[in-house]
């Protein structure tokens, strides 16, 4: 696979050319693009095009996907330069083509379109993304009360599907892999702003590589397929952290 190769569908229906980045670890020294012509169907997402390639043209192509309804977060890739969920991005958006599919940028490539996201998972764990409680718990016969307004305060941040598109789009993360990054901070805020939570995660958020590393470009929010707005989460915590530095006993 050292030269660009072609695999063409039989003539007939309209087709669109998909240029797919290929990389086999241990065999290829660098990635190459491989072109495939797939049917241009009105209802087909980019993922349907990839599945057509995998099922009919070239079984060796590797990529992740599962729910194909925009909620499992597996199928993020770079589509014509933009980080996108391929199940919710339609081929017809790209007119005559070609449409170029690359792995998510900012992550090491394992094979073809599959990237290593373990770094994100470690960062997620580091912000203690669980409800922190102190003192005596209510018995399992009673819920903690939470009004719709209290729910609204953090609900948006709880919608993160961990697709990591925001990391791929983040100019800071691409240059500095130690940056805690948009989704992990948004999820920390998801708990910080939850009326039932008693932690504040100051130690992991108030760092140069955490909220203070963000240069507020806002790409994370622009690419988020679930409208989570991590950029806002980060700016809000900067304010919280600044206040807390002045008033160390304040919580949020």
């Amino acid at each position: 696979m050292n030269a660009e190769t072609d695999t063409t569908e039989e003539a007939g229906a309209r087709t669109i050319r998909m240029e797919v980045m290929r990389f086999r670890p241990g065999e290829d020294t660098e990635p190459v693009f491989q072109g495939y012509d797939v049917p241009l169907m009105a209802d087909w997402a980019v993922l349907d095009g990839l599945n057509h390639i995998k099922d009919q043209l070239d079984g060796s192509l590797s990529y992740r996907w599962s729910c194909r309804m925009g909620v499992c977060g597996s199928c993020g890739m770079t589509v014509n330069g933009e980080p996108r969920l391929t199940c919710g991005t339609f081929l017809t958006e790209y007119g005559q083509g070609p449409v170029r599919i690359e792995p998510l940028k900012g992550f090491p490539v394992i094979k073809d379109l599959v990237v290593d996201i373990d770094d994100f998972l470690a960062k997620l764990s580091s912000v203690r993304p669980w409800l922190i409680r102190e003192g005596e718990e209510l018995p399992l016969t009673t819920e903690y009360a939470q009004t719709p307004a209290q729910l609204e305060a953090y609900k948006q941040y709880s919608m993160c599907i961990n697709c990591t598109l925001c990391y791929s789009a983040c100019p800071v993360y691409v240059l500095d892999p130690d940056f805690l990054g948009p989704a992990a901070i948004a999820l920390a805020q998801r708990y910080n702003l939850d009326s039932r939570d008693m932690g504040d995660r100051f130690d992991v958020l108030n760092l140069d590589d955490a909220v203070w590393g963000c240069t507020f470009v806002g790409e994370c929010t622009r690419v988020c397929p679930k409208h989570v707005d991590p950029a806002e989460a980060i700016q809000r915590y900067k304010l919280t952290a600044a206040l807390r530095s002045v008033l160390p006993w304040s919580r949020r």
Partner: protein
Amino acid sequence: MIDVLIVGGGGAGLRAAIAVAEQDPACKVAVVSKVYPMRSHTVSAEGGAAAVIDIGDTLDEHCYDTISGGDWLCDQDAVEAFVAEAPRELIQLEHWGCPWSREGDGRVAVRPFGGMKRERTWYAADKTGFHLLHTLFQTTLKYQDIIRYDEWYVTKLVVDDGRVHGVVAVEIRTGRIETIPARTVILATGGCGRVFPFTTNAAIKTGDGMALAYREGAPLKDMEFVQYHPTGLPFTGILITEAARAEGGWLINKDGYRYLQDYDLGTPTPTPKLRSMELGPRDRLSQAFVHEQHKGRTADTPYGPVVYLDLRHLGESKIDSRIPFVRELCRSYQNLDPATDLIPVRPVVHYMMGGVHTDIDGATPIAGLYAAGETACVSINGANRLGSNSLPEILVFGRRAALAAAEFARAHRDGEPRAVRTQGEDERRLLEREREGRRTGERVADLRERMQHTLEGAAGIYRTGDVLAKAVDTLADLRARAEEVRFDDTGVAFNTELLNLLELRTMLEVAQTIVACALNRQESRGAHQRTDFTARDDDSFLAHSLVHRAPDGTPSVGLLPVTITRWPPGERVYGR
């Protein structure tokens, strides 16, 4: 050695892992999953989770709804345990941070649901499964002792002398094949919807756990009971939640007529009535669709006949507050807005009532082997599961299986038998040979498609003996052909073609059991409707199907009595 090894990182698997970690930190627990846990299919569940919470509701009523919904094929002792423990599990999720939707005063809100006589379905808007899974996953991160094998695919259970001793698994990223010894194994791999062509199920739902157990001699139970959800989007099969009807949505045919009134499901009312019309059970609603089709009252689309779900009268603000995901899905995947447009829908394979035969604690007949969730058949779902019972099921039985497994592990401290090594070596050699591949033969995808269409034709909403009998032969033929497929990827790293082949073989085994059980059950009950045996036959078939793998690899079906405690078999009454 691992004490409790859980295969599957969805709701049941993660609930089990937390139960072990909380109860006994000395107990070594691991989760092996072919995807990162937060990608598991629990994430797609939408409408809600049922548990009695309101004053005025009772455990007995939840039991009755479940048992009548299941056409009296549920084991009633299991249903009673399930219903009794469901409330504490949902409250536990609340204590772990699950963003349940709320009433104005801060209490958890509940909504109506199909086949339920009371409002008892807890919800987090219409992304209940998503929030439940992420809450569980993030809570597991608190327990650093939980070992995770993310993106490992289990190919075999190591079973020796009637007892499980671990698994053989492939690390997908590197292709490394390893034997993981364990004192107990809990199968929590979910369902098998992908044996059908048109399904709400994610790509990963290939019945892995069912086949793993079945190949080692554990029986599967009630495999003929496949649930069609009445409202899937054509082409994609994306689910439009029952909550859309619970919030007041109507099902109408191409003439705008609320056709369910013609099928003994009640009379139309402007607002939803419990256990009536659009809030009838899923089996009856999907069957009504087929009759509408035969009467020529469905509309044609490039992706088959459809009826319509009408939400327009609910208004934008109710849609946005109660079922925002429905709107998001319709806009993104169907290019329409339910606030102003009708949603075309048709029945879609959604859930497997059957699964690995277990007792009330998730134990299978193989010592040390447990199963929970959709993989298992306890059975609380009988011949037809009620919507919003599956989420509490994965929690209640995930926890029960975990506690039983941990106890078994504590009582069996002996070392690993020689079989662990020899079976592990054999399996490794097999897989390595497989990976070398063949450059000729049929593609995995072509065989998969044939299997799926065979199942749809033979084991769909209505079944007939002779078509099922033909499917037995077709599947046997496909199984032989699946041993000789063509292979493009001979690499070791992230070889999804090899995975797809292993999943195909898994699905073929499961498909055979579905067809065999459907052929054997000469009656109509719940989701199993035979055109050649149209009535329920309690004299012959008030019993579970129990299917073993015979030595020649074919399924062998027998019957097992149903446990009846307090609700003798009766008529299923909806809307009257």
